[in-house]
């Protein structure tokens, strides 16, 4: 009977979609208990969240805006994981991407498409180097990527805080960089929105106008394109084949003639580049500048959860990122509606996410243990 249970467990843990849905439901149940303990009516709270996500087109638009960077950092983490690397450094790579995008957006003066391409391109390159560095350190010196990327995260954070104090980059004392040029922004119809016709349109069209009131931008389109790209690289190219082989079994990959060290560096380069793109789109589409950070913003760390929930695939990251964004945005609504402190809301969201990600984590741990036992 022992093995029967084993088989069942395995089937359960491996059935991705069904399992994810069950975990989401369980997560919400546990979140409800936490709300109850904190003295809030969970049904009311969930209703507020639901309304806060879906009741107005503006809200949906915000969910998408919240989700965009999470989807992309999720892709970043997922890509590295498929090669067997745990990129905790998406956070730092995101920051490096954001710095480069803000700098390129402010210092250059170019036509729109060219300017955006340049800003994103530079951000991706610098962040790719930032990620690739961790890959190189691992390949060359055997330093585990978790260690090196954590340190690189801090370097990136302090570097970011340093550059905003530079006179050429930001006005003194504000702790913010100068806003990027309008040609570097990827917001939709931003000029037209403040024209008279635009204001009139927003006033008279409820649904569309609502959406236009938000900093809606092209980031989500790029995020989806990147998700497709990640899926394509991993599944359709020889590069993806190599990376997956290394991720599953580096010993067999090496014996088969694949350069394992090179694969690690390439994987971290691409992973870093993706996280950098997330930072770039956030700057070009939402914040338009970078600011001094008291702590890490967590886009990269959230990407770990997004990747796990999304089963480390491209399409999975899109949906997981949207779920994550929705919870973050919808959850914030409880504060006003029910006077719930943010801490309680964050604990609730954290619980839900933890629960959703946990079976994947358990499975991940199982696979690693299994592999270790084998070697």
């Amino acid at each position, binding site marked *: 009977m*022992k093995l029967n249970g084993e088989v069942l467990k395995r089937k359960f843990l491996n059935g991705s979609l069904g399992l994810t849905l069950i975990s989401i439901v369980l997560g919400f149940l546990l979140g409800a208990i936490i709300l109850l303990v904190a003295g809030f009516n969970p049904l009311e709270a969930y209703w507020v969240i639901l309304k806060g996500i879906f009741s107005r087109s503006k809200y949906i638009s915000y969910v998408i805006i919240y989700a965009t960077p999470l989807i992309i950092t999720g892709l970043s983490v997922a890509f590295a994981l498929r090669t067997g690397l745990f990129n905790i450094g998406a956070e730092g790579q995101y920051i490096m991407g954001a710095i480069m995008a803000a700098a390129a957006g402010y210092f250059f003066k170019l036509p729109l498409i060219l300017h955006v391409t340049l800003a994103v391109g530079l951000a991706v390159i610098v962040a790719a180097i930032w990620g690739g560095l961790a890959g190189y350190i691992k390949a060359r010196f055997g330093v585990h990527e978790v260690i090196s990327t954590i340190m690189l995260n801090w370097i990136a954070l302090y570097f970011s805080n340093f550059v905003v104090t530079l006179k050429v980059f930001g006005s003194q004392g504000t702790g913010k960089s100068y806003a990027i040029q309008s040609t570097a922004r990827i917001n939709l119809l931003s000029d037209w929105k403040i024209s008279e016709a635009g204001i009139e349109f927003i006033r008279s069209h409820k649904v569309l106008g609502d959406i236009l009131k938000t900093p809606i931008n092209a980031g989500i389109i790029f995020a989806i394109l990147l998700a497709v790209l990640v899926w394509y690289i991993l599944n359709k190219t020889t590069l993806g084949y190599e990376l997956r082989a290394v991720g599953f079994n580096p010993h*067999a990959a090496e014996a*088969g003639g694949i350069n394992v060290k090179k694969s690690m560096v390439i994987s971290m380069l691409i992973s870093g580049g993706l996280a950098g793109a997330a930072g770039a789109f956030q700057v070009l589409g939402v914040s338009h500048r970078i600011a001094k950070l008291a702590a890490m913003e967590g886009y990269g760390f959230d990407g770990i959860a997004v990747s796990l929930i999304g089963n480390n695939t491209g399409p999975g990251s899109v949906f997981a990122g949207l779920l994550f964004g929705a919870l973050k945005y919808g959850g914030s609504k409880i504060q006003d509606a029910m006077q719930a402190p943010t801490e309680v809301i964050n604990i609730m969201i954290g619980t839900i996410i933890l629960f959703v990600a946990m079976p994947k984590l358990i499975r991940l741990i199982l696979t690693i243990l299994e592999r270790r036992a084998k070697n």
Partner: protein
Amino acid sequence: MTAIDFSQKIVEMIDVVKKFGDFVANDRINLTVHKGEVHSLLGENGAGKTTLVNCLYGLYRPTQGRIRIKGQEVEISDPNAAIQLGIGMVHQHFMLVDTFTVTQNIILGRETTKMMGVLDIARAEKKVAEISERYGLAINPRDKIQDISVGSQQRVEILKALYRGAEILILDEPTAVLTPQEIQELVMIIRNLTQEGKSIIIITHKLHEIKQVADYCTIIRRGKFIDTVEVDKVTEQELASMMVGREVSFAVEKKAQQKGEQILAIQDLVVKDNRGIAAVNGLNLTLHKGEILGIAGVDGNGQSELVEALTGLRKVAGGSITLRGKEITGSKPKEVINRWNIRTIPEDRQKRGLVMEFDVAENLILETYHDTPFSVRGMLNRDKIYAYADHCTQVYDIRPTNPYLTAKSLSGGNQQKVIIAREVSNDPEVLIASQPTRGLDVGAIEYVHTALVNQRDRGKAVLLISFELDEVMNVSDRIAVIFEGKIVGIVDAIGVDENEIGLMMAGGTP
């Protein structure tokens, strides 16, 4: 000679059934062991021998059936309960801490202590020495595990079981890791144990060992109880037929050899192991077309390092490797595979041979994915890949014939077929086969041997590395013996004397 006391039944397993889901691993097996008896369990891989002893040792609970120990019906819930009942087991893979001494290993988990939980090593050491003396185990309680031979480590495992009061010892494939001489020592130890009234259950598929050491033999085939026989009254042939269920030929069928020119030459090769010690230390060897050169030797004499050096996985510290007179020392794995066309059946198929999570097709192209038609300019061509895999599963009889199945879901024999398909289908100049039949059953072994012989008959060179002396002697044309990183002797396989090779394997000179 025999020490059996027929009046005392120590172990009785009656109609034991063990099911895993719908799969019946043991179907009404009966086993009776008397005091002082050596009872061997014989069966092919996957026949259910290990499952049966695991039921006895408390690792599994039988689905049905009864177990009696010394006449008492018992439920053995876990290994601790088994130990309490006087059952000890020596696993195939030793469970020892390398950096601990013999005594520390033996008392691990049941440390003898003085007051306040302070270890009383001295007392434990004395007891270990006593037991060692009594059964002729020749173990120094203060030696560290990492400093003693594999044979000694096995004796430490036996000692551990005895220390815990074992009356019944289960030995799981005990001879797989031993030299012929060490096997003889083990036989002596087993005799000492039975003289002292211990009972032994020994799992093996080596027939001549059963003949040599066992009193009774129970044969299991595909989970079913076939028979229990008195070993003296049957021949090895009869045992084999009962095990496999058909007549088997032990000899590998080979045509007369057409030995060709020299193709691979290894000169003064030095390769260091992970600790920086020269595991291969001045090794010389030549390999010719149309021959199978077998390398015999006990595990840990540099075989793995030699193969890793030849395949480019490990750095060569000195000497040279030449292919057709061309220096290939220091080539990367990819060059060795794709440029020099030297292919390898690795010793650990799950670690080095296969990406277990990949499907059969993806595993089949592991060394050729970058070539047309499998990919064009970096884009994989799935149609071509799976068409090729379909072809391979048929030609190489990989079952089930479904290229979309993951390697993980295949049996060991079929996993090995995937590797053989991959390595042989490109018609390699040199085929290195390292432990190619480890853990395989008789049918799969025949398949692998035929594949090797086919390569040879097509005028290609095969280097066979195996710890199984029988295999080396049966399959090879020439036999080289490796000892401490050197080739200590090369003989023709025809008319070879097993004892002569055994002596060389242990470092002696014939």
